[in-house]
C-alpha cells in the first residue's frame, strides 16, 4: 500500500509528467521561466494549490452532483489561488510582482483542473493530495530545468548569482537574448520531451492517423 502511495507521488515526476507527457500548462511554463527564482516560487505556488485542491475535491467527491461538479471544482481552485496570491503579496512582494498575472492564471492551468477531475474525483483525500503534490513537483521539475537553462544562457546567472561574466561587464560571455523571449522555452521543452521519449520509448504516442499522399486523380 505504501509502495502504491509512493508511486502516486513519484510517477508524475517523469513517467507521467503533466508538462512533457500530457503537454498541459505550457502557457505558464513559457512565462515564468526567464529566471530560476520565479520558476521556483511558481512551482511552490502550483504545488500548494494542487495538493490542497486535491484534498478538498476528494473530500467533496461523494457529495458533488455531476451537473455542477466542474463549477464547484473551479470555485475551490480559484479560492486557493487567491489565498496563495495574497500570501505572495504579503511575504514575497518582489517576486510576486514579477510573476504578476501568472499566479492568478493558475486557476486556468489545465493541470489543476485536470487532476481534480481526473484523479481527485475518484480517489481518497490522501492519495489525491499526493497526486497533486507529485504533479506539482513534476511541473516544477521541468520549470526549474527550463528556468536554469534560460537564466544561465540569457543572463549568465543562476538564482541571480553571476556565474558567467557577460561581455558588458568585462567577461567573455555573450548573453543569448533569445533565451529571455518566450519561444526559447518552447524549444527547450521540446528538447526535454524528445530526450525523455528517447529514453522511454513507451511514451511515444502512436500517430492518430496516417497521412495519405494525394494523387492527381483524387483532386476535385
Amino acid at each position, binding site marked *: 500500500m505504501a509502495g502504491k502511495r509512493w508511486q502516486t507521488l513519484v510517477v508524475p515526476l517523469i513517467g507521467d509528467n503533466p508538462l512533457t507527457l500530457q503537454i498541459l500548462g505550457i502557457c505558464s511554463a513559457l512565462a515564468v521561466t526567464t529566471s530560476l527564482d520565479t520558476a521556483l516560487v511558481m512551482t511552490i505556488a502550483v504545488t500548494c494549490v494542487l495538493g490542497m485542491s486535491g484534498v478538498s475535491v476528494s473530500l*467533496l467527491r461523494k457529495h458533488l*452532483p*455531476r451537473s455542477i461538479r466542474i*463549477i*464547484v471544482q473551479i470555485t475551490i481552485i480559484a479560492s486557493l489561488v487567491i*489565498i496563495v496570491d495574497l500570501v505572495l*503579496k504579503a511575504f514575497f*512582494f518582489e517576486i510576486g510582482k514579477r510573476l*504578476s498575472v501568472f499566479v492568478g492564471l493558475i486557476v486556468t492551468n489545465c493541470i489543476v483542473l485536470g487532476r481534480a477531475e481526473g484523479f481527485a474525483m475518484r480517489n481518497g483525500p490522501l492519495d489525491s493530495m499526493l497526486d497533486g503534490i507529485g504533479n506539482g513537483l513534476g511541473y516544477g521539475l521541468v520549470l526549474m530545468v527550463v528556468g536554469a537553462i534560460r537564466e544561465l544562457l540569457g543572463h549568465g546567472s543562476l538564482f541571480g548569482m553571476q556565474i558567467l561574466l557577460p561581455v558588458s561587464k568585462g567577461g567573455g560571455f555573450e548573453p543569448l537574448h533569445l533565451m529571455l523571449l518566450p519561444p526559447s522555452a518552447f524549444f527547450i521543452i521540446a528538447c526535454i520531451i524528445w530526450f525523455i521519449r528517447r529514453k522511454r520509448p513507451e511514451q511515444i504516442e502512436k500517430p492518430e492517423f496516417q497521412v495519405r499522399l494525394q494523387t492527381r486523380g483524387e483532386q476535385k
Partner: protein
Amino acid sequence: MADNALSENPFRALRIALGVALVCALLVSIAAVGLRPYYVANLEAERFSRLGAILDALDEETGPISINDVEARVVNLDTGGYSDVIDAATYNQRKAANDPNQSTAVPADLDLAGIKRRANHAVVYVVRNPDQTIEVVMLPVWGVGYQSALYGYLALAGNANQVVALRFYEHGETPGLGSRIQDPEWESLWTNKEIFDETGRIAIGVGKRSGEDREFQIDGISGATRTSMGVDGLVKFWLGEFGFGLFLERIRRGEA
C-alpha cells in the same frame, strides 16, 4: 443508483453550491484581512524605494541621500503654503481625500485625473541645495488609469518648470501593457521635459511627439492608450490650479 438520483436533486445541488461558496468566501476573506497589514507594509516600502530611486538618480554632488533624511513638508493646496498644523509623518492623504472635512470636491470639468475629491493637504519631499534653494521637490500624484488608480511621485527641479522624474509605486494596470508606466525606458522619457510654455500654459503631456513640442511631450505607450491618457490627465491636474499650482508659484517666487 438511489444515491445517484439523490445527487441530481436540484435543491441538493443548490445547497452544496451555496455551502462551498460560503466556505470559500470565508477563507478568502480571512486571508485578505489577516494578510493586509503585511501587504500595506510592502506597499509602503515600495513607495520609499521608488522615492529613493529618484534621489539616487540625482547629481552626485549632493552625495548619497536617504529618503529618511529628506525634508517632508505638508502643503496646503488651497493656499500653496506650508502647513505646520498637520504632522507629515502621520498624515494620510488617501484617507483625507475621502473625508469631507479634509477634502474638496473637484468640479467635473477640471477633474482631469478622475479623482472626484482632492485632499486639502499633501506631503511633499524637498531636497535643498547648500544655499537652501530647492534642488528637487517630489510631489505625490494620483489619478485613474485604465482599470485602477495610479499612485506616484512627480519630481520637479528647483525652477518648478522641469521634470526630474515621474515614478509610480502602485497601480493595477494590465501587465505588459499599462504596467509599462514602471518601465525604466518609459520613465526615462520624462527626465528634463519642460512643463510650461512661454505663455505659462501647462504644455507637458503624453501623446504623439511632434517636431515643435518635443521638449514638452512624452510618447504614449502603444497598446495602453487609456493608461497613457490617465497619466497625461493626472500630471496636468496635479500641476494645475487645483493641484500644486499655487505651491509651484511660490517655489518660482523663491518663497518655498
